């Protein structure tokens, strides 16, 4: 059974800050989701290979050939802040 500690841990991994009432609500909702997963786990899937996606495709690759990308101006258009022709972020390290 999922508890508030689990939710707090998952929230921290996802960099989410949850208030106490949100925490309670999330715990209840996640518990329901997990119960649903448990329900699905009742199916016998021993003969079904693990499937990461539904496409019946393998080996999709491309040639090692350079194609034009974004101009620097366009690349930086979404940056919250720009310095030195780069994305500027709060100081790391």
């Amino acid at each position: 059974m999922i508890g508030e500690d689990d939710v707090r841990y998952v929230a921290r991994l996802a960099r989410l800050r949850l208030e106490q009432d949100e925490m309670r609500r999330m715990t209840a909702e996640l518990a329901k989701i997990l119960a649903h997963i448990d329900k699905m786990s009742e199916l016998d899937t021993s003969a079904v290979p693990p499937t990461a996606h539904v496409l019946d495709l393998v080996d999709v690759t491309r040639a090692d050939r350079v194609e034009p990308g974004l101009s620097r101006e366009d690349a930086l258009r979404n940056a919250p802040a720009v310095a030195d022709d780069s994305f500027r972020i709060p100081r790391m390290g």
Partner: protein
Amino acid sequence: MTAATDAIVRGATRDWEPVIGLEVHVELDTATKMFCSCAVTKGDPPNTHTCPVCLAHPGALPVVNQRAVEYATRIALALNCTVRPRNVFHRKNYFYPDLPKAYQISQFDEPLAVDGWFEYWVGDEKLRCRVNRVHMEEDAAKLVHAGGEAGRIAGSDSSVVDFNRGGTPLIEIVTEPDIPSPAAAREFLQQMRDLVVELGVSACTMEEGQVRWDANISVRPVGSGELGTRTELKNMNSFRFLQQALESELPRQIAVLEAGGRIDQETLHFDPDTGTTTPLRSKEEAHDYRYFPEPDLVPLVMDPAWVDEVRAALPELPAARVVRFMERYGLARADALVIGGPGALARFYEAVVAEGVDPKLAANWTMGEYLAHLNAAGLEPGHGHVTPERLAALVRLVADGVVSTSAAKDVFAKMIEERGEPADVVERHGLAQLSDVAALEAAVAEVVAGHPSQVEQYRAGKQQVLGFLVGQVMKATGGRANPKLVNDLLRTALDR
């Protein structure tokens, strides 16, 4: 003595042996990134090679670079790994500003290749290290910290991100903990770097961080089969720092254990200024990467016939070349390792030998003056004005007695200075060996007359003095005299 017995550390209570494993990352020299068609470059202005995929714009889809798979397969096969028939990419989830998707596309439980080994030399001993796995992933972007290269924004309390590197194909090689000493770890890495360079998949430039490594290390009582708790060492960006970091971590672990303490499994950061390691931030931040299959990429099925083709096309590997140099050219192992390890130097040497000169003499000049010249000038083998033909010509002048060995060193220096042919240099500077008997007899007579006491010692039976007198004649002739002739003439003069 063996590399393993050499590595035993005497503690206060007992003898300990180190157990070391390495994780090596290699950036591939493909034209484009791992999952998009942006160019892989070095030194271009920041953020000039990006696209929606490597900037993680919503909806952008990665596609695997076929050449990166081929290059990675070359590495895996050269490390004697089994290439797995089915490859799956996974998402490795963590937040960091150099990783715009907040996950790195990597491989997890279905990697490219497993269960290989790499043989390397430590002194006269050949060691084998098992390779756990080789997998493919993408490199992170480059963070430039304020106050560092981006001095212009110093004081503004920020960092900047350059995404040119983000998404560069990266190979991770993980070894088993089979390396017996810090010195062996250094040899392992140097020789593995030679191997990867030889495969033509990466220049492994150290300054550019194209090849990087982490080490894990533990100690155990000598003879114990069990593994102790290990620590992981980071930030060792030269071979020397790797060895230093491991050498400083060994006594620390031993001291903790002998005091009855326990080693914490933690990550330590090497500080090259102090030569010591310090723990990285708290273990609270222990990673939980929540790997799951990358839904945007389909599995790769490795066709065995294609893998065989890649294997058949592998070049001669450095380890095989070293053995060939020993057998074919009669080189000692240590010399064969120096010359035969790095591909570019090996090719230069063989080009010299192909000119028909004595292989051993050619090896001495290649390892001696030529290598010193490359290091001093910061050149790669095969670059610069000393071509194989020119070095061979110089070696031939020495072998034929046209120049003495000591004069040949001057010729070599002037070949570089004047960008010239050795024969012309000899001619222009009058460096030819003096073999004119009459002239040498005069010089010998002068030295004999000038050193009566040494002459007396020699005649009294003190043979070693001869060397001193030969030296005096050499000096008098500016190093150009034919030493063998001087030797003979001196003996004749003294025995008279």
